[in-house]
């Protein structure tokens, strides 16, 4: 594209298309994931419309798994509902850090447009945008976002419709599906041995609180706090040693 060292900027349409193409391999991974979430949602008693609205408005995979699991276990009424929202917030707190690294890219963009674009920031969106470097355009961003969004919406709704057809999911060990899914998600957060102390602290705190009040969601809060506290100590120590 460059002649005599002058780069001709790509048209928005080309940028959009590049975004679509770059996220196709990610879509291939996200679709079965969405389908699985949908079938678990059906087991939890969610309708395809409930699931579709959640995917369309929350649009954050890991937190949706957590939400569906809690809805399955504790229902949606009263304080159980507030606990679900709290859990979604905790799982998505990492967005703060991801968004922080994208700040230079969004500096010149009007606040309303940035706010809309950032609605679509998922782990995958963030990774692709970061890899694009300083040449990142809004057209590229929306090429990725539109593809991921439609794939996520379609696969989770399809999973819910299909899942509703399975009569008794627990008979097939499917109650273990949640555990397996969460462990796979957890593996994605592994950053080396340093990840272990916060995780062990979280497990210990969660088990202790769960033994005292089984069924509630307090053990999740306890685990998050214990894990966060240990990580904070690690972070402080790393900064001191550096």
């Amino acid at each position: 594209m460059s002649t005599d060292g002058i780069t001709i900027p790509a048209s928005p349409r080309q940028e959009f298309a590049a975004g679509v193409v770059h996220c196709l391999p990610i879509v291939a991974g996200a679709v079965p994931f969405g389908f699985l979430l949908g079938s678990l949602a059906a087991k939890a008693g969610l309708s395809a419309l409930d699931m579709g609205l959640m995917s369309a408005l929350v649009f954050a995979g890991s937190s949706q798994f957590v939400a569906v699991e809690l809805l399955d276990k504790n229902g949606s009424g009263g304080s159980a509902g507030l606990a679900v929202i709290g859990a979604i917030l905790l799982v998505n707190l990492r967005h703060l850090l991801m968004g922080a690294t994208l700040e230079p890219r969004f500096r010149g963009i009007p606040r309303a447009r940035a706010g809309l674009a950032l609605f679509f920031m998922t782990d995958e969106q963030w990774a692709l945008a970061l890899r694009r470097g300083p040449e990142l355009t809004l057209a590229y961003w929306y090429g990725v976002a539109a593809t991921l969004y439609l794939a996520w919406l379609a696969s989770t709704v399809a999973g819910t419709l299909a899942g509703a057809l399975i009569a008794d999911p627990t008979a097939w060990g499917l109650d273990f599906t949640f555990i397996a899914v969460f462990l796979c998600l957890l593996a994605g957060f592994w950053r080396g041995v340093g990840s272990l102390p916060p995780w062990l602290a979280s497990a210990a705190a969660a088990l202790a609180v769960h033994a005292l009040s089984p069924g509630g969601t307090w053990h999740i809060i306890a685990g998050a706090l214990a894990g966060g506290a240990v990580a904070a100590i690690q972070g402080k120590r790393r900064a001191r040693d550096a």
Partner: protein
Amino acid sequence: MLESLHLDWSVFAIVLGGALVTWMTRIGGPWLVARVRLGPAANAALEATPGAVLVALVAPAALSRPSDALAAAFVCLIARRVPMVVAVAAGVAAVVLLRRLL
């Protein structure tokens, strides 16, 4: 078909709340960076939170009986080596087998 279009209002309220807090985490990053500097401790705590939440979620269920704990350990071993759907399917197959054996 009608059932799939049923809207549970209490679920919808949760979806709206979850959507709002999630959007705030998404726009909050650039907003925060422009105003406050997070120290290394706060940074590390934020980074570790999602993992800690997932651990807290699975720990009681995964350790509830030996068969499930073994299957969970098996999933941990293969999780980073195979696609997620494969790891989940293998984990479910393992738990069915182990529950019968143990």
